[in-house]
């Protein structure tokens, strides 16, 4: 499959163990996959460990999602050059080689659809250029972490085919091999080239059973799929202050979140002053600068910043894109240095004000 993708001109990225976590990086051989590696996750904790399994995908998502491959953490938007007092502007070019991503989970596919809704609706040319030819090989999740809650948001653990946002190929990993299915014409073409043996009924049954079990294993859940009115009815809830006393306002949750889209724009002039690049960089609503207005800051303290994040993610996202901005990946829980749990906070703050 990797050869087939490379022949089609794709740059392949896939999961591998790096710096103690499973991240996506350039993948040229399957030997790079994290075979026999799993992970222990809990609020504020992530440990990758060897489990001796023959599987390559026996883990729950690490910190990184698809997001950085499409919405770049930092990239130039345009460049200004000054000569003889005149300024000339040129658009920055976006990288040419299309990307194929191997091992994408259902939660990240759902997040991709949300990022698409934001960036493509507004014709962002930088995002659109990378998104256009993206090839996705999904792998159904069989090892949810204790921090995962995709079953409660309806985004996983099984991947759903879809014309725009779905996968090209989806795999179910078994101890001896994979059950593969295609979700697009080009996915079907690639699978046909591989001349695979048809999966038998017991292999398919085993694959489905493992995914069902992955849903049943999840212990965390949001208290409802639409918490918009419940959150905005509770803006003065005492729990906002409680969480602010623990929250470091570090912004980790927004950086690992696969749907957060905020970014700032800065200027990077060259040393000789002859040119200047206008660069966008991921930003976070937990920074002071995010809500800075001349003369005052709309959200000067942590209580207001955490409240902005949660009321946007689970509340006003519904107004913007017709659903919650949370896909249940649990990254914000694992990667919060003090282990703040979004499902717990939403449950406490919404109280009984939400629809079951």
């Amino acid at each position, binding site marked *: 499959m990797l050869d087939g993708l490379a022949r089609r001109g794709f740059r392949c990225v896939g999961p591998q163990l790096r710096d103690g976590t499973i991240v996506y990086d350039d993948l040229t051989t399957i030997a790079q996959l994290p075979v026999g590696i799993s992970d222990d996750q809990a609020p504020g904790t992530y440990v990758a460990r060897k489990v001796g399994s023959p599987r390559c995908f026996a883990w729950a998502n690490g910190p990184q999602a698809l997001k950085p491959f499409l919405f770049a953490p930092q990239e130039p*938007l*345009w460049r*200004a050059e*000054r000569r003889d*007092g*005149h*300024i*000339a*502007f*040129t*658009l920055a070019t976006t990288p040419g080689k299309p990307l194929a991503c191997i091992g994408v989970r259902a939660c990240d596919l759902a997040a991709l659809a949300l990022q698409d809704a*934001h*960036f493509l609706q*507004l014709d*962002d*040319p930088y995002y659109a250029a990378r998104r256009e030819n993206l090839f996705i090989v999904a792998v159904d999740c069989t090892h949810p972490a204790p921090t995962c809650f995709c079953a409660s948001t309806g985004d996983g653990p099984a991947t759903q085919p879809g014309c725009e946002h779905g996968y090209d190929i989806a795999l179910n990993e078994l101890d001896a091999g994979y059950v593969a299915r295609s979700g697009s014409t080009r996915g079907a073409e690639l699978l046909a080239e591989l001349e695979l043996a048809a999966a038998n009924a017991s292999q398919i049954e085993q694959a489905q059973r493992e995914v069902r079990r992955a849903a049943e294993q999840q212990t965390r859940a949001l208290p409802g799929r639409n918490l918009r009115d419940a959150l*905005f009815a509770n*803006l003065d809830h005492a729990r906002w202050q409680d969480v602010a006393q623990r929250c470091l306002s570090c912004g980790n949750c927004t950086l690992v979140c696969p749907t957060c*889209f*905020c*970014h*700032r*724009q*800065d*200027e990077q*002039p060259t040393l000789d*002053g002859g040119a*200047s690049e*206008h660069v*966008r960089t991921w*930003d976070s*609503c937990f920074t002071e*600068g*995010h*809500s*800075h*207005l*001349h*003369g005052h800051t*709309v*959200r000067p303290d942590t*209580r*207001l910043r955490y*409240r*902005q994040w949660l*009321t*946007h993610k689970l*509340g*006003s*996202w*519904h*107004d*913007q894109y017709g659903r919650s901005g949370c896909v249940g990946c649990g990254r914000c829980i694992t990667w919060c240095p003090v282990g703040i749990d979004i499902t717990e906070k939403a449950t406490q703050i919404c109280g009984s004000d939400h629809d079951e």
Partner: protein
Amino acid sequence: MMNNQLPFQAEVVERIQESASIFTLRLRLTDDEMRRHYRFAPGQFNMVYLYGVGEVAISIVSDPQNDDYLDHTIRALGRVTNGLSQLRAGDRLGLRGPFGRGWPLAETEGRDMLIVTGGLGCAPVVAVINYVVLRRERYGKLTIIQGVKHADELIWRERYRYWESLPNVQVLLAAEHGGTLWPFHTGLVTEVFDDAHLVPEKTTVMMCGPEGMMRAGCRALFARGIKPEAVYLSMERNMQCGVGLCGHCQIGGHFVCRNGPVFTYPQVSELIGVEGF
């Protein structure tokens, strides 16, 4: 319409000092084609780019039918605006825009216009006042109410005097701290509403200023029979992209740069003046 991500070069035609810290840059797009096609509505804004320093959102105050130049009234306050204040005629900068939704000026023809502003200058409503003044016969009574904290914050006194001299225009000024030489009302803007003798069913209100003032102003107007749908507010937030992508300007589900900056009162009533939004 310009490409909304890439600035175009503009030239400073004139720089007008309005007060110690407020100035107007009269700009002209250097590309003929671009200048001919550029259209905006009062209340919309441009991202004004100072070479090597950055961009700032500034509302356009010149008349939309003036094809020669675009006026931007700016208060020198931060890195970009202080730098912009150093520019002189002939200097070049960048413009992206226009962005957002402006004031409802076509559908309000024939109605009385009540303009309420607080704070310094308040450029977004100056664009409306200029527009209505130039088309006086198309609108009913024009009432301009301006409130400031201190009397010495009032700029454009001569302009208010001129507006007041026009037919069917009333100007009411209020300062919380008036001082001995302040000839107008000392107190809050809401206290002069009764002097405006509003006819609620034929009045459209356009408001701009601190949110506390706007919220109090709306309440006072509703108590006088103005309908919430007849009240338009220009909101201000941190703006960087101008197209609803970067996320800084959100108020609840609204992207102020794209869905606003002009909103009807019912659109923003849930969160206006609420701390943290």
